[in-house]
Each structure stands twice: as structure tokens, then as C-alpha cells.
């Protein structure tokens, strides 16, 4: 059986006061670190321990909220250490049940362009748009090629948070193909709802309008947060993304954007979703093959 040994440092455990346990898998972001966080947190979820209030897998770490009256935080740490010991190897039979989702994006849209132009004084390069800047510093010929790379390979939702429903997404490509951009020099005071942004090595969709520091690349016609739970995909939760989801940020044109907006407003919009057994070990062994399979499953 194929097995990928994770060459990660031992995790660092600490108490976040009396109600949280924070575990840092690695200081650097990597898919290996995220897979390890996912493996441990999903095993913890299966245990169904009394006193565990929230299980929050994060990019290269995870955070557990605990009710210390029911579970001593030190006992939880013992439990987590034993789970870490059993997560050293990603054998090919270890699978994370995930959803592969088509998330349409209108790149270089008029709304985020209007917003980013208002905040040029807070940006590294006031004379370029965020896309032009990101294309240049990542060595792309132009914006077109950057968008091809952004929309080509899918991403994994490696963390949810900051505000309700915000997915941090890390592209499923080897590190030498990762796109990396700084955050704004000073955060903007405004970002449109559903803006598609990029900061560090993470893509996000802003669930609600508000402040933000990520580079602005486009706009999603579909929501990630729906307080009224009017759309079918939100029947069980006000938040669409789940940690471990795989999103493909497909480039669309204005006609499709408007069509999807119409469906959202009519309450009929549904994301294209396919169930998928994602095997991290297989992925690390041959990322391109798994990515082709993901897209094949999503659009067949």
C-alpha cells in the first residue's frame, strides 16, 4: 500500500486560557500540515468526546473549544497527542470525504475594480490594479495568464473563520506553483460582499461587506453566507463552505454572472456539487493526476 510519511515537526500544544486548546502543526503553510490537521480533527470528531464544543481545523494548525467543566483541557491534550501519533502516515486508504464544488467567479469585475481604485493609497502599487500587480510579482506574462492559473487548479478549504462563512482556500498545486501576494499595506475600510480576494497563499470569498486587506481579483455571483437560508444549499446552515471542501474557482463572463445572480434572486440557485473521497496520500504522490480526476468528477 502506498504511504506518504509526513515530514513535519512535532505539533506544539498550548492552552488558550481555560476554554481552548490550540495546536500548531507547523509554522509554514503546506498541504501536508493541513492534511494532518484535518486527519486529527476528523478523528476527534468521530470520537464524539463529551465537553468538546467546537473543532476548528485551521490552515496549518487547529483550535478546539472545550467546556472545562465536562472535559479537563489537559485530558483533551492527551487525547490529541495520541491522535497525532496515529496521523504520522497518510496511507492511501486514508480518505477524507469531501465535496467538490464549482464556484463561478467573474474575474476583473467592475465592482471590485471600483472598490480597489478607491484604496490605491493603501496598496503596494498604486499605479496598477490588484490583478496587474499580482501577475507581475508572480512572474505571469499578464492578467490573462494569472486568471488561467487561479481558475485552473482547484483549492481546498483549509479553514473557516474571521467572520462567519469566510473560507480560506489553498490551491491544490505544489509549492513552486503556488501564487503568493502580500496583504494591502493598510487594510481597506470597504470590500463588497462576495468579493474574491487573495492574501498570502490563500484565496477567499468575503461573506459580507466590510473591511479587508486581501488583494481583490473578482466577484462571486453565488453567496457563501445566507442569513435567511433562502437558497436550497443553505437549508442546513447559514454558511455554505465546510473545512475540507474542494472549490474550483471557474472563470465566467458577465452573461453567466448575471444569469447566476438572477437564479440567486429567484431562490433557485444551487452550487454544482459532487461527493468525492479525497486521499491526501494519493494527492501528494501525484497532484496533477488527482486534480484531473477532481475536475472530471465535477463536470461529468
Amino acid at each position: 500500500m502506498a504511504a506518504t510519511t509526513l515530514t513535519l515537526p512535532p505539533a506544539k500544544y498550548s492552552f488558550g486560557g481555560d476554554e481552548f486548546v490550540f495546536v500548531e502543526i507547523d509554522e509554514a503553510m503546506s498541504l501536508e500540515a493541513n492534511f494532518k490537521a484535518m486527519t486529527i480533527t476528523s478523528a476527534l470528531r468521530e470520537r464524539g468526546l463529551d465537553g468538546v464544543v467546537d473543532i476548528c481545523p485551521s490552515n496549518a494548525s487547529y483550535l478546539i473549544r472545550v467546556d472545562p467543566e465536562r472535559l479537563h483541557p489537559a485530558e483533551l491534550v492527551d487525547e490529541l497527542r495520541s491522535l497525532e501519533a496515529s496521523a504520522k502516515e497518510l496511507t492511501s486508504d486514508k480518505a477524507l470525504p469531501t465535496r467538490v464544488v464549482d464556484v463561478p467567479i467573474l474575474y476583473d469585475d467592475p465592482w471590485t475594480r471600483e472598490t480597489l481604485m478607491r484604496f490605491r493609497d493603501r496598496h503596494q502599487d498604486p499605479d496598477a490594479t490588484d490583478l496587474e500587480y499580482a501577475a507581475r510579482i508572480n512572474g505571469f506574462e499578464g492578467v490573462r495568464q494569472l486568471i488561467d492559473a487561479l481558475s485552473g487548479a482547484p483549492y481546498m478549504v483549509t479553514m473557516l473563520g474571521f467572520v462567519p462563512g469566510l473560507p480560506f482556500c489553498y490551491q491544490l498545486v505544489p509549492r513552486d506553483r503556488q501564487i503568493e501576494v502580500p496583504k494591502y499595506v493598510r487594510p481597506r475600510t470597504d470590500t463588497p460582499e462576495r468579493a474574491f480576494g487573495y492574501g498570502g497563499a490563500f484565496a477567499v470569498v468575503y461573506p459580507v461587506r466590510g473591511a479587508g486587506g486581501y488583494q481583490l481579483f473578482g466577484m462571486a455571483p453565488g453567496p457563501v453566507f445566507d442569513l435567511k437560508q433562502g437558497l436550497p444549499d443553505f437549508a442546513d446552515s447559514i454558511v455554505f463552505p465546510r473545512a475540507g471542501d474542494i472549490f474550483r474557482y471557474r472563470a465566467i463572463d458577465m452573461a453567466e454572472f448575471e444569469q447566476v445572480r438572477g437564479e440567486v434572486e429567484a431562490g433557485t440557485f444551487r452550487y454544482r456539487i459532487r461527493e468525492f473521497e479525497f486521499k491526501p496520500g494519493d494527492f501528494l504522490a501525484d497532484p496533477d493526476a488527482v486534480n484531473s480526476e477532481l475536475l472530471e468528477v465535477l463536470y461529468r
Partner: protein
Amino acid sequence: MSEVIVHAGGLYTTVQDSGRNGYYELGMPPSGALDQFSCRAANLLAGNEEGAAALEATYIGPKLEFTDERLVAVTGADVPVSRNGEPVPTWQTLRVKAGDVLSFAMITGGARLYIAISGGVGVPEYLGSRSTYTLTGIGGFEGRKLADGDRLPLGEGGAEVREGSEVAEGLRPSFPEVAQLRTVDGLCSYRLTEAAKRSFLETTWKVTKDADRVGYRLRGGKLDFVEREQPFGAGSDPANVVDLGYPIGSIQVPGGDEPIVLLNDAVTGGGYVTIGTVISVDRDRIAQTKTGDQVSFVPVDIEEALAARRERRQRLDRIRTELRSK
């Protein structure tokens, strides 16, 4: 249904209870009363369950008219309270009848007062709680702070508590010149130099004007980071880490010179270095500090943090027992 007429909303008055738990993993903080001890004590005095929905008012209280007979209690900050213009005590069970008006002068100590009404505030529950989370406009009264002219629904029921019952002075919070916040070291504190760790604990920090239910920004010192090549995905600033989850009460230090203590409406994660966590009991304390007040951080370990939690539990149990025995 019986209601309270809000003649004046005050500065920032919201419906809060014991909090909305179990949604942190979606990025939704628990909200709930910042000073849990005071809010729970107010509920006990009004004959409610400890975790019932009450009002939390910051700096300036509301003006409320009742439309039926209720038990009411005001706790938390030191504040002159009057019923129909006549002064009435805080930390005591009061009785109001239809037409009675409760009003508040400026607070004289602390920062937040709690008003519990028998039957509890009867706004609809949202995800298991009546607490207001204003960022996304959920829970509480229409997801927002109270405004002049609102009519706040009340619940029914509650235990009978004798009018004039009170919480003994020794059980109430005090507001010292420097609020001591017990803190568990950890998270990414390895990013600070040894000198910065000492300086963090030795500094008396001042609460800035950026102090609300999301968090308190402090000023008063500068903390240096250990030099390193920034890890992949963290961002170029030495105060940046790969985005991670923030515990409630955690202290982050963007730029190294303005620590922020996150509170009950916390952003649940982000990319700034976190260096430790204020214990849950002392969120009650920081909640009673206001802009210009001083705080300092006192190191404790997990056992001391849990002992402080048990001690708060015992104080509340004593209040409950004493109210029953009368």
C-alpha cells in the same frame, strides 16, 4: 405579549445571554454578556435562570418603561439608577409595575451594566441563544443595539424573589485602578523575544478608544519579535503568522505595539501573532474597563485558570442559595 417601551436606547445596549455556543468552527463567535458574573447575578436577583437574556448597556444606560409588574435587577458597573425619578439601589431585587420608568445616570465605575427582568427578554432564539451579534445582524432585538422607541418583548415565568434581596457587597466585582488580567501564556508566544515577554507582563497598558465587544486595543509599550525568515504563507510582516484560529480572550499583537484582547464577538481567526489568552473569568474584568483605564497581565497556568472558574461558580451558587433561603 408584554413588552418594555424603550424611551432611550442608551449608547450601546444589546440583548445578551450566556452565549451561542457551537458555531465557532463556522466563524461565528458566541457573543453573550461580556461580564458573565454580573449578568448571571442580575438574572438570579430577578428570579430567572442564570443564563436568561438580559440587557447589557455600555457607559450610558437606556430609559425603560414597563407595561406590567416585573422583578428587575441592575448589576455590573456602578451607576445611579432611578425608578420614576427616585433613586433605587443596584445589586438588589426591585419590583416595577405598569407605567414605572427605570432610568440611569452616567456610570461612575466600571463600564457595563446589566438589567435583568423577570421572565427574561423574550426576543426569538437564534441558533440556541438570544444574544445579539451585530456584525451580521443576528439574534437579540432585530440583530442590533436598542434604539429610541423600540418595544422589547418579555418572556413569562420566573421564580419569586423577595423585593430588596441583594448580593452581598463582598461578592460583587470591584474596579481597581489597574485591572489585573490573569493570562495563560502560549499560542505563538515563541515569536516574542524573552525581553518582550517580560516587558509584556511588566507594562501597565492603557485601554484605547478601540474597545468594544469584538476586542480591546491597548497601548503602552513595544514588543519585539524574534527575527526569522517568514514561513511560507505567513506574509512578510514579522507580526504575521499563517492564518490560524483565535481563542476568545487571546491577545494578538499587530505591529508589536498595540495588543488586542479579543472578547465575545471576536473575529474567530486571522493572521496576527497571538501570545497568550486572558482566562475566561477575567473577561468579566476587562469588560468593566473603559477607554483610558489601565490593565496589566498576570501569568497563571491552566490549573489556576480552572480554580478561578470554580471560584466564580461558587460565588454564583452562594448568591442563589442566599436568595432561596429568604
